[in-house]
């Protein structure tokens, strides 16, 4: 009897134990990042795993003074891309779902086909085009291609969002004699706030993290975004690991804060997108 009970307790706890091990292993590098960010050279060697008794908070102020300009650049470029993507995809999604268009199906199939072009492979021809437009080393050189890359998925998302809203909502307004522009401003915009939120989050995360394209386009130091700047940092402050880790911690804060505040919207958006496909 006792034996049986013991067995039962064990078998229900096995998933938790395995998950706990997974969680610890997933979090361990983050823990090391945080404790190392408070150490100097010597402390890293003598006390690798522990929390330092004499935390070096100045690592953070030093790191901040180095990466400040990169943070500023990222916070100019990423939100601009998000705004562009939202404007384009909400209108396009609304039109594809609710308005009459010539050759609508064909046009939407074209959009879906563009989705299949792997953006990573466009790197070199895109760079050649940006060179010929003289947009290299400018914010626009990152923002415009970023909007193009993000808008396609976002349009597919927003189309399926608008399809979920009954036609009668818009028809009623039209019968009341509302102009199309009024419908867009007074109805489409407010109605689409949830999908705007989802698109904003998804675009923000993917573009904030983007490394390759800004790395190639933004050649001068004062233009660099956070990921590019962090890579630079590793070269400049080779052995000052405390400072580097402090920089990593600083740049992780905005994204973690954003995801904590918006977890529900984000998870909802991700799962909806995947199911619809």
């Amino acid at each position, binding site marked *: 009897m006792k034996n049986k009970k013991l067995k039962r307790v064990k078998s229900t706890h096995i998933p938790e134990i395995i998950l706990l091990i997974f969680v610890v292993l997933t979090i361990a590098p983050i823990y090391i990042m945080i404790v190392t960010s408070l150490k100097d050279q010597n402390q890293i060697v003598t006390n690798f795993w522990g929390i330092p008794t004499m935390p070096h908070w100045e690592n953070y102020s030093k790191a901040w003074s180095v990466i400040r300009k990169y943070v500023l650049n990222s916070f100019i470029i990423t939100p601009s891309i998000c705004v562009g993507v939202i404007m384009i995809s909400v209108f396009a999604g609304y039109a594809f779902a609710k308005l009459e268009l010539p050759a609508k199906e064909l046009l939407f199939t074209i959009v879906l086909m563009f989705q299949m072009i792997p953006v990573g*492979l466009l790197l070199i021809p895109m760079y050649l085009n940006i060179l010929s437009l003289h947009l290299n080393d400018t914010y626009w050189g990152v923002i415009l291609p970023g909007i193009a890359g993000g808008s396609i998925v976002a349009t597919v998302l927003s189309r399926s969002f608008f399809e979920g809203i009954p036609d009668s909502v818009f028809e009623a307004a039209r019968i009341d004699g509302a102009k199309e522009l009024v419908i867009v401003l007074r109805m489409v915009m407010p109605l689409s706030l949830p999908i705007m939120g989802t698109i904003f989050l998804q675009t923000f995360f993917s573009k904030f993290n983007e490394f390759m394209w800004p790395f190639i386009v933004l050649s001068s130091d004062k233009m660099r975004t956070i990921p590019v700047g962090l890579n630079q940092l590793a070269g400049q402050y080779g052995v000052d690991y405390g400072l580097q880790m402090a920089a990593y911690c600083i740049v992780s804060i905005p994204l973690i804060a954003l995801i904590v505040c918006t977890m529900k919207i984000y998870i909802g958006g991700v799962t909806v997108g995947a199911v619809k496909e």
Partner: protein
Amino acid sequence: MKIQKLKKNNRKYYNLLYILPLFAFMVAFMLMPFITGIVKSFYRYDAVSVNEFIGFQNYIDLFTKDSKFPIALKNMVFLLCAMVFCFGFSVMAAKLTLMVKNKKKQYLFRVLFFLPMALPSIVVVMMWKFLYYPEIGAFAHIFRWFGATFPNVLGTEKYVLWAIVLIGFPWISGFNYIIVTSALQSVDIGVIESAQIDGAGALKTFFKVELPLISPQIKTLLTLGVIGQIQEYERFLLLTNGGPNNASLVPGLHMYKMAFSSGNSQYGYACAIAVVLFIITLIISLIVMKRKKED
């Protein structure tokens, strides 16, 4: 009547204005580069002095003369296999999470697996680079406990690919994890229960009943993963730059280095590599789409 129809038609074309910005951006920043890429793949082109049409020569060189490209392809295949294996861990974690009966604990696990997703990807890569450092990194410390010396894994041909694959262990990607969890949750409990009544154990139920039921989501995620992996070379650039001795070279990185590595600027050749990779991803997508239709 006629006027009304005309008006309606006008409206239809006027509506095109809504999708005009989308198409303008798609044409300018996707279609144009796409065409440029294909065209330039037939040129010897360095954007400054050389611009010469050479037909299929870039492609011929790529498959016959280039000694690095086969290595890169071989590495890519290895990494694709590794990716599928790593994906299994997200599925396992999702299933185990749903087996946790206590709702609060279950929620806690979900949040804990999901949150690390917010870390900028470059931070994760740089972090692991630090863990791998010989002498001072985490692995060096662990090895020292057992009296062994930790080799410079990122600088050793034998270990470098394995070391890169190990990054992110236990590989629970927040994105895959959420989608698999919500897919598993939507499986009809009745189906599982009837399988269990028929005498199937927990493992058998999972592999024979649940897994086939969520296979559409798994296929989608794996396809996305495969296509992503074929294009991915950022972490190889950051960690090893393809070295040592091309042991961690992948096709994407080869393309990048041909174009931007010091003294190369072989844009035409790099475009040819991109086109080959594009064709590979296209074939994979088409196979998946066809299989989806058959299902």
